[in-house]
């Protein structure tokens, strides 16, 4: 048994309390520990990704109990890739937070940050549905703290809504798990898959549970009509935290991909294609709501939040057909949309801190207007899906995968019209903030001009995120090869089931 599989959960879980209890009064020490832990997490993720690239599904039995009786962690290509993405994003965000001083504007930033990473890594690794619930709660409770980091009236009110929405979601998750247990007698994902495929469970209850789970994960993934929490939360959270939250919506998408391709494999005797039939129209609506929101936004942060909703729509649209090639494109788009959302929020943080407001009005140009404009331009190109960055390739892949006769009309119109509206929204925002502002005479009274210039370290995380988007476009070939193997592994659910349950079968003999 490979003990490194549990390291991404244990490492932040050990570091976080140490930061919270021992380093709480020393921000430098906390920063060092947090960065060191995040770098270590990155190294472990790289190692695990290399290990998983061989194509073997590795299972970690907690307490050495055989699978359906004990909890398991499962490392395959998909979970390794998500871990790597999480750790890269975490490294970018933690550097930005330290460089801009966000982490010192409230208490316990780094402890909460590490707990958040623990929850996210756990959710990506677990092979047990109830354990997934527990890790969701871990990442949520940390995100509540991070969301209201540094306080403020608006932020606390938005935080209250965010907590209420997610608590209701957690309750629904428990109802879904209860129904699932009542119908199948197990909560291990591989074991559920076996029962569902055998057709022995109670069909009505299993269908209810599958749809309830889709709703729960849809809340996390901001799937319309469960997206209402996202704009207020992301717009009012500290911008670096909003950048970290870019991975949180992907946790919902990941859970849909994992549970609804393995446990409720499409075409099984119990649920059939029920999930795809609901997910497809919901994703179309998500793209529409995202695009309209971008067009209607009067502030930069809500504009970015709606663009995140739109990108989730495109991602879930590709997931909803549940085919191997479409899943490959969905995973590519997942990588791209996480990084581009993070890049946009980090640039927005620099811009807002110098402008003093995120309202889309014409104001005096800030110092280094050119730098901000260039970064925003690059990140916006990626998000809206213009060449040459990965957004263009991502959307092209998704559209290629969705060119079947039944889906092409809806999918292509949604993606193309949605992209056009998003581009218009971003162009308007960019020209208001960066372009027209150069024609406004400098105002001597603005305090913003007294602010120090953005240092290289402060701009570096956003630049790295943009550089990663470029790399994703430049190395689209090798990345797609890995993703192809990932989705092949995902759709070969019998391998996953065998690996997880093999020990129990052996010991029974």
């Amino acid at each position, binding site marked *: 048994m490979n003990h490194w599989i549990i390291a991404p959960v244990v490492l932040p879980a050990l570091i976080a309390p140490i930061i919270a209890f021992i380093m709480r009064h020393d921000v430098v020490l906390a920063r060092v520990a947090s960065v060191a832990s995040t770098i270590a997490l990155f190294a472990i993720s790289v190692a695990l990704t290399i290990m998983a690239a061989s194509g073997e599904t590795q299972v970690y039995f907690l307490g050495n109990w055989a699978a359906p009786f004990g909890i398991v962690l499962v490392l395959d290509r998909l979970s390794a890739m998500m871990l790597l993405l999480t750790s890269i994003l975490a490294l970018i965000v933690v550097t930005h937070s330290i460089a801009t001083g966000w982490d010192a504007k409230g208490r316990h930033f780094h402890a909460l940050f590490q707990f958040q990473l623990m929850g996210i890594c756990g959710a990506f690794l677990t092979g047990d549905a109830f354990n997934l619930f527990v890790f969701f709660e871990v990442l949520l*409770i940390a995100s*509540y703290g991070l969301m*209201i980091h540094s306080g403020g009236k608006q932020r606390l009110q938005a935080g209250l809504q965010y907590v209420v929405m997610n608590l209701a979601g957690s309750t629904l998750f428990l*109802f879904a798990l*209860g129904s699932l247990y009542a119908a199948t007698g197990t909560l291990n994902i591989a074991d559920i898959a076996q029962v569902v495929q055998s057709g022995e469970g109670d069909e009505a209850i299993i269908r209810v549970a599958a749809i309830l789970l889709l709703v729960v994960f849809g809340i996390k993934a901001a799937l319309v009509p469960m997206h209402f929490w996202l704009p207020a939360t992301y717009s009012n959270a500290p911008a670096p935290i909003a950048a970290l939250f870019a991975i949180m919506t992907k946790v919902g998408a990941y859970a849909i991909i994992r549970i609804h391709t393995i446990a409720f494999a499409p075409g099984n005797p119990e649920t059939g294609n029920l999930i795809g039939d609901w997910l497809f129209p919901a994703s179309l609506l998500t793209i529409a709501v995202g695009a309209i929101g971008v067009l209607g936004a009067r502030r930069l942060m809500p504009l970015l939040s709606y663009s995140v909703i739109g990108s989730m729509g495109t991602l879930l649209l590709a997931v909803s057909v549940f085919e191997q090639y479409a899943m490959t494109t969905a995973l590519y788009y997942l990588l791209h949309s996480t990084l581009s959302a993070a890049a946009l929020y980090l640039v927005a943080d620099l811009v807002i801190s110098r402008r003093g*407001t995120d309202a889309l009005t014409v104001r005096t140009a800030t110092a280094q207007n050119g730098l901000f404009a260039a970064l925003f331009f690059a990140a916006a190109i990626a998000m809206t899906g213009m060449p040459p960055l990965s957004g263009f390739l991502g959307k092209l892949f998704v559209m290629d995968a969705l060119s079947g006769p039944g889906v092409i009309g809806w999918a292509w119109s949604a993606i193309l019209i949605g992209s056009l509206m998003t581009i218009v929204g971003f162009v308007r925002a960019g020209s208001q903030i960066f372009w027209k502002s150069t024609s406004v005479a400098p105002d001597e009274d603005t305090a913003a001009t007294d602010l120090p210039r953005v240092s290289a370290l402060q701009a570096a995380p956003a630049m790295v995120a943009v550089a990663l988007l470029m790399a994703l476009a430049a190395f689209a070939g090798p990345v797609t090869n890995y993703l192809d193997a990932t989705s092949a592994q995902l759709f070969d659910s019998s391998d996953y089931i065998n690996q997880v349950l093999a020990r129990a079968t052996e010991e029974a003999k």
Partner: protein
Amino acid sequence: MELLVAGAIGALTAGGIYLILRLRAFAVILGLALLSYAVNIFLFATGRLAVNKPPILTGYKVTDFSAYTDPLPQALVLTAIVISFGMTAVLVMFALGAYLESGDDKIDMPAPDDLHEDDGADVGEQTLVIEIEPKERGQ
């Protein structure tokens, strides 16, 4: 007994949903508490309702499992209780913080159009300081 348990879950859920649709934070918190009670009983019932049956095996050579009840839902309920208790505590702190900052416990936010241009995403200069008036603290 099935009818009683099902009725209790239904009544708690209905009350909880009604309350979380209210506009005041206090009612919403009560609603979520009711919902968490409902889900706890629901989880408990997923192992099938059994009277006078222990969840723990006595001895290892048991052959007749019908004399026992499913222990797993009981473990799940314990986990769910702990998590929902903790989450409710966090929610109360949030509601208290939002109440003290904004002066009312309305759950909805002001419409974006009502905001002054300089409101909204601030650059993080404010810090959350909850101060209780001395006379309130003393009594």
